[in-house]
């Protein structure tokens, strides 16, 4: 379910690391909680994000939620496909529904995040 090579945050974001590049999205659990996503607000390319800073906003039929950056870095790419097809976040949250790519500043922050198995444990302990 949750890709083994990704790292996860308590706010239900995932990050996939390739070199100093990190792709960030929200987890399958998060998209299920939100329901049908209708709009994703993304930052401008070049934005410097701090740890746990707001990346943007996801609007679903139920609610509007902030997305947080699990680690500090500079935004190098945003998923333009989400402008036309926000449903990608629901359909493929760990793949085509990615939100931004950043140049990671501190890889130590990423290492502190949860592994897929820790995240699954974290989810099972959540009191809905």
């Amino acid at each position, binding site marked *: 379910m949750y890709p083994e090579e990704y790292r996860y945050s308590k706010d239900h974001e995932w990050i996939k690391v390739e070199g100093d590049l990190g792709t960030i999205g929200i987890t399958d659990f998060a998209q299920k909680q939100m329901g*049908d996503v*209708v*709009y994703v607000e993304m930052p401008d390319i070049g934005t410097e994000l701090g740890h746990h800073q707001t990346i943007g906003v996801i609007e679903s*039929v139920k*609610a509007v939620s902030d997305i947080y950056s699990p680690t500090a870095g500079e935004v190098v790419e945003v998923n333009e496909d989400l402008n036309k097809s926000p*449903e990608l976040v629901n359909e493929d949250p760990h793949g085509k529904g990615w939100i931004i790519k950043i140049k990671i500043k501190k890889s130590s922050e990423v290492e502190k995040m949860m592994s897929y198995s820790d995240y699954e444990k974290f989810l099972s302990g959540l009191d809905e």
Partner: protein
Amino acid sequence: MIREPLIFVLSEKGKRACLLPVLDVDEKKSVTQGITVRKNIKGFPQVSEVEVVRHFTRLSTTNYCVDEGFYPLGSCTMKYNPKINEKVAGFEGFLVAHPLAPEEMNQGNLEVLKLTEDLLCEITGMDKFSLQPSAGAQGELVGMMMIRACLESRGEQRKVVLIPDSAHGTNPSSAHLCGYKVREIKSNSRGTVDLQDLAAGMSEDVAAFMVTNPNTLGVFESDIKEITRIVHSEGGFVYMDGANMNALIGTSRPGDMDVDVIHLNLHKTFSTPHGGGGPGSGPVGVKEVLAPFLPKPHIEKRGERYYFDYDRPQSIGQVKSFYGNFLVVVRALSYILSLGPEGLKEISEIAVLNANYIRKSLEDIYHLKYNSPTLHECVFSDLFLKDFGVSNLDVAKRLIDYNVHPPTMSFPLIVHGALMVEPTETESKRDLDLFIDAMKKIAIEAEKNPELLKSAPHLTYVRRLNETTAARNPILKWTPESKGKE
């Protein structure tokens, strides 16, 4: 039931609602000169007067309103709007008064404004009010702007506003619009503000803490005095969202809780019309420390004369044309005066009693996340429906078939699949029982026949609408090309 077509579909070329007399003077081409005529309106409907009247009358009968039935939309306080308020607002002196008439000719109307502000001060325990803001969200923004102006007058540039995770979505929006960064404060296991988290988040960089009391779970923030102490000790302000004032009115006062600024919703607590555009009114009340920053003009009285005071150098400025929505204020004043102090107290008592009657009647079936005592509203969760593949949305849609307006849904976010029920004081026991019975029947239906819920509503003018498509691909305008696809 026959679906009412769009008025464009009723259109037939050449039909009209009025016939102008034959032109008996020379035609001048300059009649429309200087007037902007929109050229991009295509297919303007051509219909007769009776067709227009019938079309909109028929449409109006498909609406649901508080004059028709139970409307437990939590945190919105959809109480009955007493008709005496309409009668009073219809008095000629109020109705035809011109806001630009000289003050000497408008003394009676100015007295209404001043009296209402004074009464709101007495009810809330605040020192000064302004009736200018036109709705709750604007009241919030005005409140935050005053806090900012006050801090800046002291040379302080604080950057952060703290807000509990149970807050109304407008709170972070207002703070954000005012240029602040928002930080969330967690709720504890009782569903109230976690004091440790608040104390840890509080610093000299925090401008304000925005709190709703009772909060959106209907739980009274019993630590409110400690909350205000913590925030004040670091030089911050406490903003109270007065959306849930219906639980406190006549019983306790935010001013006595050391709150610095509050907004009220006249269209909630004070019974002025709410749905359908109101219009609303979101008066904002402050303690003396923030009074110099109130919007200007401000209504004042010198000797026997009422006047608008524009000489307010520290004011954040004017926030609404003239002095707010005047006739809404008239309705609220009519409400306050017709009830009197004892009547106002009874509002909160009965509102709390009604909500607790519903809670006690349903809490064995519908899941409650928090055990804390609640005041004027209670929030159920849809967790118990999970096994049947049914969610709060399906319950809400099925309620429509029982002729009840659905409660507020999926809010606050800290409760899974929330159903937030606020009956208000205006409902009779009979109506409360009708709602409770409907909710009990729906819980049984969910188990026995979940499809019935998932395809609800069944007895309405339109069946379940696709909210996702409506949000993703909204079609907001009819064009001739859409003919036949309606």
